[in-house]
């Protein structure tokens, strides 16, 4: 009898301890000024086990749910353009892996057509330079560039800050994300960077077959997979490497689009326009091939309307050009104009490329328009 009373007491103590442990997770002490305590929640990526580990966000802009939520709102808000008619999403449509719905060049609010093709926005945090020419060194640096660009959203940034201050929804969102209601260009950039960083895509058919042993490649897809990795086949993998699971080395390369014997021959100098270095002329960022079937047209200038045109190019139309990296693109291939693929081989590689499409990412509601 006595023992069971001790047992009961012990049980009670454990119960109390457990309950009090739970209470620690409960929010929130409210401060005098009616704003809740600034206590953002670290963002957790929903990534499959085989996915690469994300590089960490910069120390001064850790990814949080509050920051991502604010960034998402900004991404879809037309206030971010000069005449409030375009948002980031106007040229980065989720259904097209955040490219511009098949357009070769996007048209800004002033009717100016850009010269490069809108880039897909998944898995961005794996690269360390952004845009086709690598002009931004971080997502934070990248975020404001299209907003301020005269040929794109043509917004006056100080004016944007005022517009957001006047919108009742934003000061509280900024407070939740950054602990201040003081809206600034820097914080706008940080929030958008957080949203971009949160967008990941690693659930394609390729992933299922390769890592989850779910389903099989069709015969054509399998042949395409092998050709992709064969030096005597498509030889795609030197630049579009599988090793980081992103199908890109994220280096800058000249893929033989333009015959150039001097730097003046490049209609668009690419990385050369950023660095000014002769050896960087004609180099462009190697894009990830994840979701590539959704991101037509192709190349930095969107010159190829279809993947078939891309394969035709690599098969037969490569040009000798300055600054080609012959460790990646072999001279023996260039000498004969390309990889010399048969029509069947091209279609096999295209079939494989379609296995890199991630249907869940383009439908993921956490990346979609919050105003709808």
């Amino acid at each position, binding site marked *: 009898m006595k*023992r069971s009373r001790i047992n009961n007491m012990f049980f009670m103590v454990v119960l109390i301890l457990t309950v009090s442990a739970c209470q620690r997770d409960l929010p929130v002490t409210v401060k005098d000024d009616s704003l809740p305590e600034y206590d953002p929640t670290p963002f957790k990526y929903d990534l499959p086990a085989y996915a690469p580990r994300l590089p960490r966000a910069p120390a001064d802009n850790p990814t949080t749910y509050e920051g991502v939520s604010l960034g998402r709102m900004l991404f879809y808000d037309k206030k971010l353009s000069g005449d409030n008619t375009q948002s980031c999403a106007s040229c980065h449509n989720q259904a097209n892996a955040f490219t511009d719905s098949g357009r070769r060049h996007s048209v800004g609010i002033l009717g100016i057509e850009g010269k490069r093709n809108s880039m897909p926005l998944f898995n961005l945090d794996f690269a360390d330079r952004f845009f086709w020419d690598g002009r931004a060194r971080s997502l934070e640096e990248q975020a404001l560039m299209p907003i301020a660009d005269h040929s794109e959203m043509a917004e006056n940034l100080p004016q944007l800050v005022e517009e957001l201050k006047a919108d009742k929804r934003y000061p509280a969102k900024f407070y939740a994300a950054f602990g201040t209601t003081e809206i600034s260009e820097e914080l706008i950039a940080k929030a958008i960077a957080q949203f971009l960083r949160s967008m990941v895509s690693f659930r394609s058919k390729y992933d299922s077959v390769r890592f989850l042993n779910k389903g099989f490649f069709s015969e054509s897809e399998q042949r395409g997979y092998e050709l992709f990795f064969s*030096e005597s086949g498509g030889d795609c993998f030197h630049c579009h*490497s*599988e*090793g980081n699971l992103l199908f890109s*080395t994220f280096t800058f390369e000249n893929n033989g689009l333009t015959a150039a014997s001097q730097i003046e021959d490049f209609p668009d100098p690419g990385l050369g326009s950023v660095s000014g270095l002769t050896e960087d002329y004609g180099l462009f960022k190697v894009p990830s091939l994840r979701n590539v079937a959704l991101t037509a047209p192709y190349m930095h200038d969107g010159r190829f309307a279809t993947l078939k045109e891309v394969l035709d190019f690599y098969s037969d139309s490569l040009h000798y050009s300055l600054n080609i990296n012959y*460790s990646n693109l*072999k001279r*023996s291939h260039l000498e004969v104009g390309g990889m010399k693929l048969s029509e069947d081989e091209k279609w096999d590689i295209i079939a494989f490329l379609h296995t890199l499409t991630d249907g869940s990412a383009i439908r993921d509601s956490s990346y979609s328009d919050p105003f709808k």
Partner: protein
Amino acid sequence: MKIRIPRLTLLTFSLFLVSALGACKKEGCTDPAALNYDALAQRDCCCEYASTATLSFKVNPEFGNSPFEFGKTFYHNSGTPFKINFSAFYFSGFVFLSDTGEVLLKDQYVYYRGDSSGFQLTDVPSGQYTGLRFFIGIDSLANYSNLPAQYEASHALGPKTPLMHWSWNAGYIFLRFDGEVDTSLVPDDIMDDALSFHIGTNKYLSSVTFNKSFSVNENTQQVLNLSIDYEQFFEGIALRNNHVTHTSDFPDLTNKFWPNISKAFSMP
């Protein structure tokens, strides 16, 4: 209705059970990595481990007798001028040899950028050694098990730029040399073509053994010297006409290059 088992019975029974189980199990160290590992032991206790230390390698990259540098023009012994603009190697499977046997250092991989001045191995068991053996390349298990993305970014086998991994079926590039070569019949030091040796696959895993006595202990910092002679890598290769192989595309050149690999490494 609840069945009540008298408390005393329950207590006695549990005590009996516990002591009975304990009696069946031989106590000893169950960790094979420990010094006093007992293969018959079932209940773990009292493992004793060897002390370990960090072992540093000071690497001396040379070309013949002059210091090796990326981007510097060197002259092949056939007279052909060439440059190496980038190189990197993997080392793995370190085995420490001693009079009493061999100690394998498990799961340590070294990514060595070809012009750097050294690397370190950690958790090397203390001891008096008579030699050292290691692979230039990656053992077959690790070569095909994971993709680089599945390692931490800082891991030797994680993603590298430039690429040190081909694909799931070809595995890692064990040695990578990228450069340029002067292919003129009369050399003019103007580089006309790319040099690219990417060597890998199990077949071309090299192993080197050095007889060298050294000791490893917790208290003193041991440094071993390793020389890499870039002249040796290209010994006997007609570089003017043969300067590209990615292993399987030009097997003749790969077969010629392969024996040079182990000769390029020495421990003075």
